[in-house]
């Protein structure tokens, strides 16, 4: 692959868009300097921007090649790393894919290669963040029967939450709203992610406050006072989550 010099790929931010960019890099035999989302393009002085058209078929070919030539786990890690939205992660992914095509399924053993370690670290960080939300999501029962939850995740973890909650709450409609990205994961028999227009107006059902206050009571009594340990708590449950955790936010349990 020739050095692409100052070429910068701009894609629309979707996963298919990103894989179309990867396809383009292989098709044109060049290595772009950066791959960026259109909306946060930096536009450096010497950049030669190329806008990538999202092409489902191209993306599918890249996906299939990764799964076949590297491994399914590699595909999953790339997807998770992409969800991190860390600036520059796209180039790491591209390098990882190139290394993967060379080393095949053993690529993940080369932990001392920078791109492998960086990609696996990014994927791990995203998976950890997603796990935090399996823990700390708090649903509120709304009038009309929907269970609603609001979150502000560091990374775009909504797609990683769908399966867990869809299996668990099979018979009730629920909704997780990412207020930072204005995305909504909605479940009513099947999962989909939609763009939210404005903040959803919610009205809690009658007994919602009762159960919130019962939960708060339980939370307070379960502590063993002689073992009080503030630091240990915030290690496990960092303060950035507290705003949306029922028992930690006085606005949610006090009427």
């Amino acid at each position, binding site marked *: 692959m020739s050095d692409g010099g100052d070429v910068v790929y701009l894609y629309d931010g979707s996963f298919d868009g990103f894989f179309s960019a990867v396809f383009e890099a292989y098709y044109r035999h060049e290595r772009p300097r950066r791959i960026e989302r259109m909306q946060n393009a930096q536009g450096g002085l010497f950049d030669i921007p190329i806008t990538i058209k999202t092409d489902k078929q191209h993306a599918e070919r890249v996906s299939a090649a990764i799964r076949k030539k590297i491994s399914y786990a590699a595909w999953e890690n790339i997807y998770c790393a992409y969800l991190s939205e860390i600036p520059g992660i796209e180039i790491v992914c591209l390098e990882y894919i190139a290394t993967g095509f060379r080393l095949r399924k053993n690529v993940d053993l*080369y932990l001392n290669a920078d791109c492998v370690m960086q990609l696996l670290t990014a994927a791990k960080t995203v998976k950890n963040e997603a796990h935090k939300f399996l823990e700390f999501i708090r649903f509120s029962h709304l009038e009309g029967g929907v269970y609603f939850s609001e979150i502000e995740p560091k990374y775009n973890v909504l797609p990683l939450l769908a399966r867990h909650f869809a299996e668990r709450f099979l018979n009730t409609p629920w909704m997780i709203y990412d207020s930072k990205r204005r995305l909504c994961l909605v479940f009513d028999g099947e999962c989909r992610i939609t763009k939210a227009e404005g903040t959803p107006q919610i009205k809690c059902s009658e007994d919602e406050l009762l*159960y919130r206050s019962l939960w708060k009571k339980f939370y307070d009594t379960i502590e063993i006072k002689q073992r009080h*340990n503030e630091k240990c708590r915030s290690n496990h449950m960092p303060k950035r989550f507290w705003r949306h955790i029922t028992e930690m936010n006085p606005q949610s349990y006090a009427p």
Partner: protein
Amino acid sequence: MELAKKLRILSDSAKYDASCSSSGSTRKNTPGGLGSTAPAGICHSFSADGRCISLLKILLTNACMYDCQYCINRSSNDVERAAFSPREIAELTIEFYKRNYIEGLFLSSAVVRSADYTMELIIESVRILREEYRFNGYIHAKAIPSASEALVKRLGLLTDRMSVNIELPSNASLSVFAPQKSKQAILTPMKSISDSIRQNKEELALYRHAPEFSPAGQSTQMIIGATPESDRQIITLSESLYKKYSLKRVYYSAYVPVGSNPLLPTVSPPLLREHRLYQADWLLRYYGFSAKELLDEKHQNFNNFVDPKCDWALRHKELFPLEINRAPYEMLLRVPGLGIRSVNKIIRARRVCKLSFEDLKKMKIPMRRAKYFITCGGKTYDNIWIREELITPFLLSDSGAAYGQMSISDCQPTGEDGVKCLTGEM
């Protein structure tokens, strides 16, 4: 009595139980059902003492007919008493579960009327959840010592995990502080559960749809620091419990002074000792250590300053340093500072290339303690060599900082004080 008040009283009584894990079960949701379990378990919150809250940990009632001296619910203690009905427990669990507050229920109870009667109440609560609400979340239930075997078996078919608390680490202590319980009464249901689990495994191998008996196994708990047993006795007991009854976990609960018996210590809970026991417990279960390697005649208690693995390594300097590129998996696990994850990373990476210290650093393997015990390609880290008197200061665990309020000097005497005050008087 009001629901909120009952919840306060009965969770207050239940909180001294250390176990709160929701792992080990792969129960799937069923059509028309509610909930599922996650094999690795999920903690949903952390209380202000830093312990995880994964299950709704609660007693059915705290009106106990027993008078165990170390227990807050002993019949002679002057505390508020309350009782839930099985249906109230089930409703509360469901409402909390639907809001993703909890993974499921941890149901225990004081002994009321008789062991069998109490067991029947527990079974009824769990039955309502499983059958009426078709609840597929995690349920951990206590088997009451000296309850009949048939009831233990019925409960096991409804729950994910069962436990019988061993309470105190020796028969002698039990007879002093819990005269109504005997070692036999505790070990009998434990054995019955472990037999049923083993038998159930065989059934499942034959019939895929056989009902599962306590699929996440059984656990137990003992109270640390209330009685004079040494760490060696405790860890040996744990080892035999793991071997004999294939327990999933033994929990150690630092004794919080709630008793009024003059033989019991009144000092604050020996948290560092509890921590050391947990470290040793992990070494037993995942690192291939045996109890007699960790402590022996000469070393009855764990070192307050270094963790058990480090302590062991310092006593076995002849085995180190290990060559990271060649040492077998079992030996790498014994290097202080390397955990299962780090060792797995090393094993994977060294299949494809020779590792140097730089590589380990890139792989984010912590070197703080390990560097004194390993070589990479024959080289030591900055020419460090193991000399106990030189390196021990560097190995001191930072437990004072990591485990919160206590500093090492606070913790050191507590365990021993408790022991001394007891041995002096007994």
